[in-house]
């Protein structure tokens, strides 16, 4: 027999209470795992979308960006700031550029508010900029009423090449000229229009959301940025795609704070739950602890017993929680995609990994163990005579 045998037998004394306490910690561990998975997943997904998958190295935007550009993408609004189309001719003089893609980006929310569609007006330069621009069927625009659909939009709208697509918001009909291969990027959920058509739809002829630039050699980023800077008016920005993704992530920061507050609340509830349970367990067994002291149990022995009981609860609760959290993360990611975040990147926005699981497990177990200190000390400091006298 050892201390663990005694501790485990005590947990069996009130199994429902032990299980409920473990579950409260499991909820904390699951919440922490989900939040960390979302935090990591969303950041990675945005970076992948805006930095890795777009093929864009630099953007030229009007003053106010990158927050303004992020706002357009995230909120689905129409930015009052715009880049004049004239700027493209100035940029073309700069060397070592592989492609220059002017674009008009806007989002339209359906009348019932159930969906926000992203429209992007592009030129043929898009083929050079976007690494995944390949057609599943059809091809480039054949007229100013043509539309190219991202793979997901084609699936949702159940449209094929040659089909007509009516947009209620603009009261316009388009003909599908091409459907893109699935790229697992933002493009899958985008309607691509000829640039001029897109500008006309929102009454912004000659005006662009931004100009995307792909470099021949990424190591020349700073040098080319300086050249671009010198060749365009002072009220324009030259920003890297990484900075743009950081702008988007800035919008996420308030959601992030709320999520971490939720974690703190969940952990606090667990903390009080564990302290309450262990304290109850100590108070209920005062006589026993007094007797154990009579037969030679020291303070350390009783602390060890209480700590082992708590450890068993914490280990099982945390393990259950992180496993549940890892499985629930994709579900939470889907919920957040629908409910919380205006800008949703294409990739998974919940990405649990081993490091997150280990971190959440360790944090919850340690916090749980810390909760055993007070009840443990109460048990250790029981004066046997006082308890027995009251008998």
């Amino acid at each position, binding site marked *: *027999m*050892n*201390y663990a*045998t*005694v501790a485990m*037998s*005590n947990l*069996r*004394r009130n199994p429902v209470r032990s299980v409920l306490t473990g579950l409260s910690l499991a909820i904390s561990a699951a919440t922490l795992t989900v939040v960390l998975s979302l935090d990591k997943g969303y950041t990675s997904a945005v970076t992948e979308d805006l930095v890795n998958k777009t093929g864009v190295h630099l953007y030229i935007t009007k003053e106010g960006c990158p927050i303004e550009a992020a706002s357009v993408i995230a909120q689905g609004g129409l930015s009052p700031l715009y880049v004049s189309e004239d700027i493209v001719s100035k940029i073309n003089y700069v060397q070592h550029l592989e492609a220059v893609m002017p674009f008009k980006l806007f989002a339209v929310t359906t009348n019932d508010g159930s969906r926000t569609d992203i429209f992007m007006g592009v030129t043929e330069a898009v083929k050079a900029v976007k690494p995944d621009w390949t057609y599943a069927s059809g091809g480039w625009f054949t007229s100013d009423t043509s539309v190219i659909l991202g793979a997901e939009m084609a699936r949702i709208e159940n449209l094929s090449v040659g089909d007509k697509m009516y947009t209620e918001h603009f009261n316009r009909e388009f003909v599908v000229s091409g459907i893109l291969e699935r790229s697992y990027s933002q493009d899958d959920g985008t309607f691509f229009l000829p640039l001029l058509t897109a500008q006309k739809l929102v009454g912004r002829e000659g005006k662009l959301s931004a100009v995307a630039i792909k470099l021949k050699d990424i190591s020349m980023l700073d040098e080319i940025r300086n050249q671009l800077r010198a060749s365009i008016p002072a009220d324009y920005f030259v920003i890297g795609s990484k900075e743009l993704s950081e702008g988007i992530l800035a919008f996420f920061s308030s959601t992030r704070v709320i999520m971490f507050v939720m974690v703190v609340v969940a952990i606090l509830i667990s903390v009080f739950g564990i302290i309450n349970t262990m304290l109850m367990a100590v108070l209920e067994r005062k*006589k*026993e602890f007094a*007797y*154990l*002291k*009579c*037969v*030679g*149990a*020291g303070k350390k*022995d009783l602390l060890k017993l209480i700590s082992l009981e708590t450890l068993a609860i914490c280990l099982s609760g945390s393990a259950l929680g992180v496993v549940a959290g890892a499985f629930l993360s994709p579900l939470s990611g889907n919920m957040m995609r629908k409910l919380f975040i205006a800008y949703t990147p294409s990739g998974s926005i919940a990405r649990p990994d081993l490091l997150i699981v280990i971190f959440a497990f360790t944090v919850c177990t340690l916090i749980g163990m810390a909760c055993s200190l007070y009840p443990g000390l109460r048990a250790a400091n029981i004066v*046997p*005579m006082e308890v*027995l006298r009251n*008998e």
Partner: protein
Amino acid sequence: MNNTIIKLEHVSKEYHRGTETVHAVNDVSLSINKGEFVAILGHSGSGKTTLLNIIGCLDHPTSGDVEVNGIKISSSPEKELTILRKKTIGFVFQQFFLIPTLTVLQNVQLPALFASKADEGKAKELLTMVGLEKRLSHLPGQLSGGEMQRVAIARSLINDPPVLLADEPTGNLDSRNADNIMNLLSELNDKGITIVIVTHNHDLVKNCSRHVFMEDGKLKHES
């Protein structure tokens, strides 16, 4: 050679109950030799349990000196008293204080665990001695009162204490079980263990070698 194992000199214990001072033990001097079987008798409230608790290092006297197995407990720190309780003294109480979720065998092993010498063989040996060799894996709830007290006695002996203190060990038992327990204690005394028993039942302690009578916290007389 000094044969005294317990020595009390002018021991007093006072409690404060509100503004009232209670003299639970009042100037008691008593020496108990190794191998004695001493019964402390008295009515409820006479101070006999308080005296036993002082001997058992569970309570500190307000004044006077107490020596157990050569160690002055009135001046010893708590850590030393814990070691004394662990190695020198076995306790048997009226309530059996068995851990309900541990088996009979595990309950007996418990004090040995705190002394870092948990020995299953010794525990089985003791349970055989008290006639419970077939009840090793039973839980306390599955035993009768007499059996539970026998488990408690086996438990009190697991660390080979030279002194066994019993506070009303038959208080919760019927007369047949009470006689059995007293016979068991007599057998243990025959093996050389010093036993001090507190009770108010004069009939039970006929076999004791010494009877100490208490009244109002004082030793009234001995026989």
